[in-house]
């Protein structure tokens, strides 16, 4: 049996099964589970993506995903968190990441799941290479809500 299936914070080359990630946070005292699923979008600002390639610094990426889980537990001690991020070549509509957070009450599940995806885009060493029909490019910081002029997370983000 593949032991990776039980890891709550996982980088994998395989297709991500949503149910498998959700099962890791299942809890008799969870009333709510929020999942965020990041998928490969075809069109971005009028440009057509053919496929993506993700690369990661695997051991550090898993460590940083786990750190995000720990940060969530500080705010929501009853939460359970699992995150799986796929790497390698992904086609349009493929799942890149699944975040699952269970909490007793729904507000916390939304807040924590939202927090997790923002943090992934800040501190987890994973890189996306876009392949278009007229070229390819390793993408930089993809944050939609915040920008790092220096390209670096702030001191606070790294705490």
């Amino acid at each position: 049996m593949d032991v990776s299936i039980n890891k709550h914070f996982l980088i994998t080359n395989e297709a991500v099964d949503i149910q498998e990630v959700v099962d890791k946070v299942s809890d008799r005292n969870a009333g709510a589970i929020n999942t965020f699923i990041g998928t490969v979008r075809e069109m971005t600002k009028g440009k057509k993506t053919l496929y993506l390639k993700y690369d990661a610094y695997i051991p550090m990426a898993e460590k940083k995903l786990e750190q995000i889980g720990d940060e969530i537990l500080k705010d929501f001690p009853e939460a359970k968190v699992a995150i799986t991020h796929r790497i390698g070549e992904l086609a349009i509509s493929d799942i890149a990441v699944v975040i699952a957070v269970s909490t007793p009450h729904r507000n916390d599940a939304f807040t924590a799941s939202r927090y997790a995806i923002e943090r992934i885009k800040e501190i987890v060493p994973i890189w996306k290479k876009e392949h278009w029909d007229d070229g390819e490019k390793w993408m930089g910081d993809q944050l939609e809500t915040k920008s790092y002029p220096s390209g670096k997370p702030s001191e606070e983000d790294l705490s």
Partner: protein
Amino acid sequence: MIKILLFAELAEKAGKGEIEMDANTKTIYEIKNSLLKVYPQLTGLQTAMPAINEEYAEEQDEAKSGDTVAFIPPVSGG
């Protein structure tokens, strides 16, 4: 010996993802400068975030022989 890891665009530009640097102790700043002498095309080192043994580090932090230093370009997971 300090092990240097490069990723994404940095790895492509260097033509490799792993470099061994013969040194006992070096700050991140010194490692960057050494790398740029051999690989002047690695301008992305300036916006990369350094890590020592899988934890983010600062310019002035020191890596010792046996450590792994990684240069993390702006991330784009998710």
